[in-house]
């Protein structure tokens, strides 16, 4: 069977926002959403809006069925063993905080070692810093080489110390580095660690198989993969989730509540207290359908093609420094600096040309400090990105260089 390719022109027709004429190069921040996603959410609001899991009438049953259907779609999408292992959260941040709170407080004790990396997003650093401070645990960060790739020797040394937890992102949001996650998870498991993989930047862009990956927890957000904000996923291996106490307490996560005490609901609902983001979860289900239809191998192939094109175009510009590894080992993210021009000034000039470009520290301040820069400009790509948008970015950069010459 010939590998599937993406018909970008057809894809773009599903995204009404492109009718505004923008060149959108900030998908690592949040993606755009196709009509199929907004349509599914609108249909809920207009046809069967009601609460889930409790009412006895027909539309509430439909809401429950559609809400729970996303769980199976996500399970299949990341190849988890059971829908009991798929917990709805607001996003990656909440998913990691859930683990830090529920698993961390029970399992991390004084003197324990937690291994993170300098490539991690703040949401995979700060929850562990809070936990470590509370428990008297130690955190060590794996450094990078000059190409922005993790120092595997240093990682191996840290594993020899028997860390309790290893947490890292599969893809760096700030540099695009694709980490050798399967090898890193295997080594960490062999060293006896529990492993959390931050999949916020990998799940939208490449095939993911959590069982092949072998991690204990895997977190990602819907809004970076064509879904709405407010719906994300925590995958956890069942035996770990079963042993964890709830993160949030309240309605819907209980079995029975008596004055003397409460028993908790089964997985996965134990971790889903309160009225849920029903429309958003239904929207996420539609996003998973959309991506599955395209095929994640095709998504990756398309992004690689755009990334190679952009990498070459940007590398040709005088005074421009690209951070991170070559295109074959990076996701559709290119962080760069322009000599004499602050990223924010570039982003403002690009904005005048309707080019949406990110400028800042990308929630990775330890990495910025490591690179010795206050901020970078970042272009990131997705299923709908076309070469013309990269050309427009190059035009904006040349314009900025003309203004600042």
């Amino acid at each position: 069977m010939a590998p599937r390719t993406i018909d970008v022109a057809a894809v773009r027709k599903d995204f009404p926002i492109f009718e505004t004429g923008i060149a959108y190069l900030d998908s690592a921040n949040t993606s755009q959403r196709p009509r199929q996603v907004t349509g599914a959410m609108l249909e809920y609001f207009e046809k069967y809006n009601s609460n889930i899991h409790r009412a006895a009438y027909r539309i509430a049953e439909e809401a429950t069925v559609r809400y729970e259907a996303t769980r199976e779609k996500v399970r299949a999408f990341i190849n988890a063993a059971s829908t009991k292992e798929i917990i709805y959260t607001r996003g990656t941040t909440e998913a990691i905080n859930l683990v830090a709170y529920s698993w961390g407080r029970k399992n991390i004790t004084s003197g324990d070692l937690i291994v993170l990396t300098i490539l991690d997003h703040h949401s995979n650093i700060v929850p562990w810093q809070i936990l470590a401070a509370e428990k008297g645990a130690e955190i060590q960060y794996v450094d990078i080489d000059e190409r922005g790739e993790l120092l595997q020797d240093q990682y191996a040394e840290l594993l020899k110390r028997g860390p309790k937890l290893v947490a890292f992102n599969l893809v760096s949001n700030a540099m695009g580095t694709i980490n050798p996650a399967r090898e890193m998870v295997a080594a960490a498991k062999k060293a006896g660690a529990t492993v959390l993989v931050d999949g916020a930047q990998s799940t939208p862009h490449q095939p993911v198989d959590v069982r092949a990956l072998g991690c204990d927890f895997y977190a990602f957000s819907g809004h970076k993969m064509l879904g709405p904000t407010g719906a994300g996923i925590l995958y956890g291996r069942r035996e770990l989730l079963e042993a964890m106490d709830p993160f949030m307490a309240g309605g819907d996560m209980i079995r029975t509540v008596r004055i003397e005490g409460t028993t908790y609901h089964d997985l996965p609902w134990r971790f889903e207290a309160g009225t849920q983001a029903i429309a958003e979860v239904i929207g996420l289900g539609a996003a998973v359908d959309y991506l599955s239809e395209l095929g994640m191998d095709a998504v990756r192939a398309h992004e690689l093609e755009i990334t190679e094109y952009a990498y070459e175009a940007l590398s040709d510009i005088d005074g421009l420094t690209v951070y991170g590894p070559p295109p074959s080992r990076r996701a559709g993210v290119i962080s760069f600096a322009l000599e004499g021009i602050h990223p924010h000034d570039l982003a403002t000039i690009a904005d005048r040309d309707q080019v949406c470009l990110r400028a800042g520290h990308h929630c990775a301040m330890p990495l910025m400090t490591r690179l010795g820069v206050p901020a970078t400009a970042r272009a990131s790509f997705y299923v709908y990105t076309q070469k013309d948008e990269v050309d427009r970015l190059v035009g904006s950069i040349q314009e900025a260089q003309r203004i600042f010459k």
Partner: protein
Amino acid sequence: MSTAADDQFYREYILDHYKNPRNYGRLEHPDITHEEDNPLCGDIVGMDFQVREGVIEDIRFHGRGCAISQASASLLTERLKGLQLEDAKKITKDDVLGELGIQISPARIKCALLSLKVLKVGAYGLAGDDEE
């Protein structure tokens, strides 16, 4: 693509202040010194003041960041030099934005007002309000 708006935003004199900042550097024996940053974009502005009998006799600023933050600081030091402290206190965000003379988008207001924050917090101990 060149548009009139770009050139208006990065007016010649703003670029001039960015590339050739006035009163840039440090004072050896400042009476007051203070630094503020904007972690979101990594802009830093610090100021050293030399004050004699209620007058800002000398001033230097240092820092790094975007054209707007650095030009704004340069412009402000020009205004502050030789000014009575009491008069310096009266400088408002509208004064600073007016001096820049360009439309500042909400996302860039913090850049434009960083130097005013240094003045307010450092020299006067006033609460540094995050102007939006």
